[in-house]
């Protein structure tokens, strides 16, 4: 790993990622806005600060693993991977287009660096658990970690709780899961569609170590990962509270933006907000 970024630099990276997400989605004309914007701080921190990886050798056998279980949020992963050097940034504008490696939902066989194929919800956690099981029990390699991001609406899926039981039974201590707790899903707020609370209690009762953090505070993310890695004999879940649509006023907290891209005017306004950090910076370069 070459020179680590400061947390200020990580915040700026995350802001760059948000701008890329807006541009990608506008260009694609379809896709999900709220989740990817909300996850920008977390995924940026994972790829630039937390995970051992080599963008020039994505299959490097010393790497940590990243599983995106809620595949519809993949624009944030693509944007971060490009920024990290896995592929050229120009390619981001091919998202969801014919012939692109950047499929609407992530496909491992299309793009090196992706660990799984996901989109249908509820299965990424099991796949991450499978890798974590292999590292812990078959490869006896305790230096590598498996990071998995799930949505909160995704936790409606039974497959998730099958995986949660499995990881608890086998005490998969190299598995670190982030639940993107943004409280929205397609049909509305999670607590209206299908209540998840007491969410921390649910995971705890399945044998997991549970933390709750502000998903927009980079230091909190770093601290929580440190704690998760230190915990032995239990898998870790970090309930990561995020604001859906984070960084763009008219998208924040609004579930209607779950599955919608911005049109040209909306993208312009969103980029203006992100460039100026909502008016904090005056000299905006268009």
């Amino acid at each position, binding site marked *: 790993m070459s020179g680590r970024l400061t947390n200020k630099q990580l915040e700026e990276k995350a802001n760059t990622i948000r701008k890329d997400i807006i541009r990608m989605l506008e260009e694609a004309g379809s896709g999900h806005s709220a989740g990817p914007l909300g996850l920008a701080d977390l995924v940026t921190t994972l790829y630039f600060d937390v995970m051992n990886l080599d963008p020039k050798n994505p299959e490097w056998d010393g790497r940590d*693993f990243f*599983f995106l279980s809620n595949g519809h949020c993949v624009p944030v992963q693509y944007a971060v991977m490009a920024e990290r050097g896995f592929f050229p940034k120009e390619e981001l504008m091919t998202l969801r287009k014919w012939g692109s490696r950047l499929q609407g939902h992530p*496909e*491992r*066989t299309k793009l090196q660096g992706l*660990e*799984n*194929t*996901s*989109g*249908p919800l*509820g*299965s990424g956690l*099991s*796949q*991450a*658990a*499978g*890798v*974590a*099981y*292999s*590292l812990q*029990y*078959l*490869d006896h390699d305790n230096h590598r970690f498996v990071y998995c991001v799930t949505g909160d609406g995704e936790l409606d899926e*039974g*497959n998730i709780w*099958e*995986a949660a*039981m*499995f990881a608890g*039974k086998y005490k998969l201590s190299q598995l670190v899961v982030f639940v993107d707790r943004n409280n929205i899903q397609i049909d509305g707020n999670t607590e209206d569609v299908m209540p998840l609370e007491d969410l921390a209690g649910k995971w705890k009762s399945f044998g997991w170590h549970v933390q709750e953090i502000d998903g927009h505070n980079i230091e909190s993310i770093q601290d929580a990962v440190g704690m998760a890695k230190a915990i032995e004999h239990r898998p870790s879940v970090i309930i990561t509270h995020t604001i859906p649509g984070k960084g763009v006023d008219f998208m924040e907290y609004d579930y209607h933006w779950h599955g919608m891209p911005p049109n040209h005017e909306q993208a312009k306004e969103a980029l203006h907000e992100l460039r100026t950090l909502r008016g904090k910076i005056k000299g905006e370069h268009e």
Partner: protein
Amino acid sequence: MSDFKLAPKVYDSPDMEPIRAGFGRGLKHAGELDERVVALCADLTGSVQMDKFAEAFPERFIEVGIAEQNLVTVASGLARAGKIPFTASYAAFSPGRNWEQIKTTAALNDQPVKIVGGHAGLNTGPDGATHQMLEDIALMRVMPNMVVICPGDSVEAEKATLAIAKNGKPSYIRLARDKTPVFSTVDSPFEIGKAYVLKEGKDVTLCGTGTMTYELLVAAEILKKHKIDAEVVHVPTIKPLDEATLLKSVQKTGRVVTAEEAQIAGGLGGAVAECLGEHLPVPVKRLGVMDRYGESGTPREVIEQFGLDGKALAHKIQQFVEKVPQYKKGY
């Protein structure tokens, strides 16, 4: 003629063994040959014959509980970590319950996850319709990247298990529960994607898969008495289908009957009809389960009630041959 020699006394007093027993031996052997082979089970370890592997390699055996969706998706992760995972349950539950997970995380994801569907077909007997999986061939055959194998007996199941351990592809293997005749021998060939002519004939081609191949051999003997000279082709791999062997046989016989312990829609019958429809449109009669569910009974009773024993098959084949002329050029 292939070099497929039938077991001695195959018509009089064949050895009887459940197909799943061959899988159990094959899996243990595969584990001995390659330490990347791991086995996952959903609370049916003895029933699907994973116990031999579990005893020999406890560190490579993973019990996931009654959770078929997790079964195959954890396996997908293990494959990502470089392992060759065999997942076993009853076919009614895997792929019956977890088809989407198999599609997304094994097939589309192109990982060498092995799906072992135990207790498939009517042969599951007394457990009844919920457990007599009849739709699995169709379900798995439509999935790109997936290999679909339905061994004819326990000896072949052992070879098929070893073969899919090495093929690097997502693969489905269908196993029957009850004892059935062993018609192959340890020396019989088995290769993924190959069909085998077990008996030559000129009047009609009989294509069987799984337990139905033996019943077709019996039927062919009965048909001899009615002066019908049937060719019997065993089709253990349904996908990829051995079109060359099928077409070669059909060019000679001009008529085809298929038999399977499964729904004919989308099953072996479907696969054969699709192939012939495009390449050589001869008359086809598909025998199997005709758009209905199974019922409780002893395995043999159920097979007979569905008209899939050798005698009943012979009767239906005879009617077909007498009614429908052989295809000729310019037909």
